[in-house]
């Protein structure tokens, strides 16, 4: 479905080199790696917010970056990580912005568009917040609103940059559960970045381990999450335990 073939990009002193991976329809791929390893950079390159050196992203065989921003937005939604709210728009006003790609520049959204936005808020259990200024939401609520905004685009692909950042345990599980459900039921293909190898192992179909701008390993969770690979990527001693068929990744502590 989505194929990345030899993605390279350079910021000058940091570069991403020869990134390759493939995600099938309805699958979740997680980019896992330490801070500053290049996960966000890769995700931005996949969407085309940063320009990779050559064409390298294909959705259903089509060169994704040859599409206009408008066509791209109809095909793929991007949930950004850092977010500085400029004005206190209401939650509904923010979510309806996801429809920009379906309106001409001379059009404003009408009742039917607000209805679509409401539908997505309902799906995420956020309908009662619709009139709240979105600057007055918690981190987790804000994250859900941005996911709702991406979902009104009716995308086939969803790119999410650290959707669990700043969230408590419950909300991490909730958001990842929602993404999993979207993948299973709506056949949405998702690429996300995460920090927690355990959550990655539970929720993703595939994992790509990122280190210093390169993909160190990519594949099914069970092949990738091995002690020696993780130790190399994160640079800390690691234990992997088996529990009810799940792998639990733990740091080897030196506490006495």
């Amino acid at each position, binding site marked *: 479905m989505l194929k990345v073939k030899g993605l390279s990009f350079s910021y000058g002193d940091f570069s991403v080199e020869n990134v390759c991976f493939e995600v099938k329809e309805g699958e979740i791929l997680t980019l896992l790696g330490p801070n500053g390893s290049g996960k966000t950079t890769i995700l931005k390159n996949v*969407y085309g*917010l940063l320009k990779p050196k050559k064409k390298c992203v294909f959705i259903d065989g089509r060169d994704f970056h040859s599409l*206009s*921003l*408008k*066509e*791209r*937005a*109809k095909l793929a*939604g*991007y949930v*950004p990580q850092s*977010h500085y*709210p*400029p*004005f*206190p*728009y*209401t939650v509904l*006003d923010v979510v309806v*912005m*996801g*429809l*920009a*790609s379906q*309106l001409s*520049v*001379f*059009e*404003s*959204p009408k009742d039917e568009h607000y209805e679509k936005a409401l539908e997505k808020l309902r799906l995420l259990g956020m309908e009662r917040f619709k009139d709240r*200024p979105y*600057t*007055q939401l918690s981190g987790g609520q804000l994250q859900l609103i941005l996911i709702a*905004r*991406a979902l009104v*685009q009716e995308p086939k692909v969803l790119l999410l940059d650290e959707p669990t950042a700043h969230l408590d345990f419950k909300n991490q599980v909730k958001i990842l559960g929602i993404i999993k459900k979207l993948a299973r039921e709506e056949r949405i293909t998702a690429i996300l970045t995460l920090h927690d190898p355990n959550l990655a192992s539970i929720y993703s179909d595939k994992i790509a381990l990122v280190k210093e701008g390169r993909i160190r390993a990519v594949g099914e969770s069970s092949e990738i999450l091995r002690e020696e690979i993780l130790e190399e990527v994160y640079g800390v001693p690691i234990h992997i335990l088996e529990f009810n068929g799940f792998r639990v990744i733990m740091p080897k502590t030196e506490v006495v």
Partner: protein
Amino acid sequence: MRRFLFLFLLVSPIFAFFISLFIGAYHMPMADIINMAFLKSLQLISGVLAKITLGKLYFDVQIPYPSVYQTVLFKIRLPRVLLAMIVGSALAVSGAVLQAIFRNPLVNSYILGISSGAAFGAALAIGLSLGLGVTPLAFAFALLAVFLTTSLAKIGGRITPVSLILAGVIVNAFFSALTSLLKFLMEHEKLASVVYWLMGSFANADWHSLKVAFPIIFAGCIIISLMRWQLNVLSFGEEAKLVGVETEKLKFAFILIVSLITAASVAFCGIIGWVGLMIPHMVRMAFGPDHKKLIPLSITLGASFMVLADTLARSIATYEIPIGILTTLLGIPFFAYLLRKTGGGWHA
């Protein structure tokens, strides 16, 4: 209540228009003004009908009032009222647009260098007695200044809020210095007229200025109104690209329109401060940041505010008070009150 206020502000220019038409240094009874306005409309209609049917006059309307009355009302007061209204709209809507696309509460269209460019053009026209008139030069230099500011601010094909403000400061400083130099070299009477021009005034309004300014500003306001929802999206900066908006092209279009309508305003009436900053803020504090409401209300409230301020300027004293001083003095207390009460309505 809010709904009522919304509708009231939307139609407020109609009330402001009549109030301003009734009041002036030359006193005329209200009934006479209404009568004359009615008869004049009939006269115009009959004129249009006659044109359509090739000269056949259906009814002949006479206006039985002294010609002073007619001159004051139709040649002086009416164009002045109309010019004040469209200029108020232009300045207010320009402020709203730029605040959104540069995500900055302190921006108005003067940040683009328009005011200092126009001031230099005016000083040049007055100082060198070019005979061209002040307006064309002020207009040309206003646009030149915008061009310089935006070219300077464009870094790697993008204009960021910070680069724009810095470029604006540079261009403003450049033209201000040149204007000061001209003022320094000028004779006293000329200096006085430059200073007076800089304070802004509608005293020179006539049908000629309206004929030029009206089409530009009217078309600009219509286009901005049609595109207004894009401003919601654009105010998210780079993120707007994620929902499929061509941010750079759209910003360029908005800056172009705003420059044209502000330059057209400034060229005819000098530099009138605060309106572009104040009106959008007031609307935002009362109705929230959604541009679907903000833009139409900025247009109508800008018109009402400016025409009423100008009415005060020309009627509270025996001499005219410069409108720029008045807009500032009128705006500040209200603005201060709203700021204290709502905390700015900018962030949470």
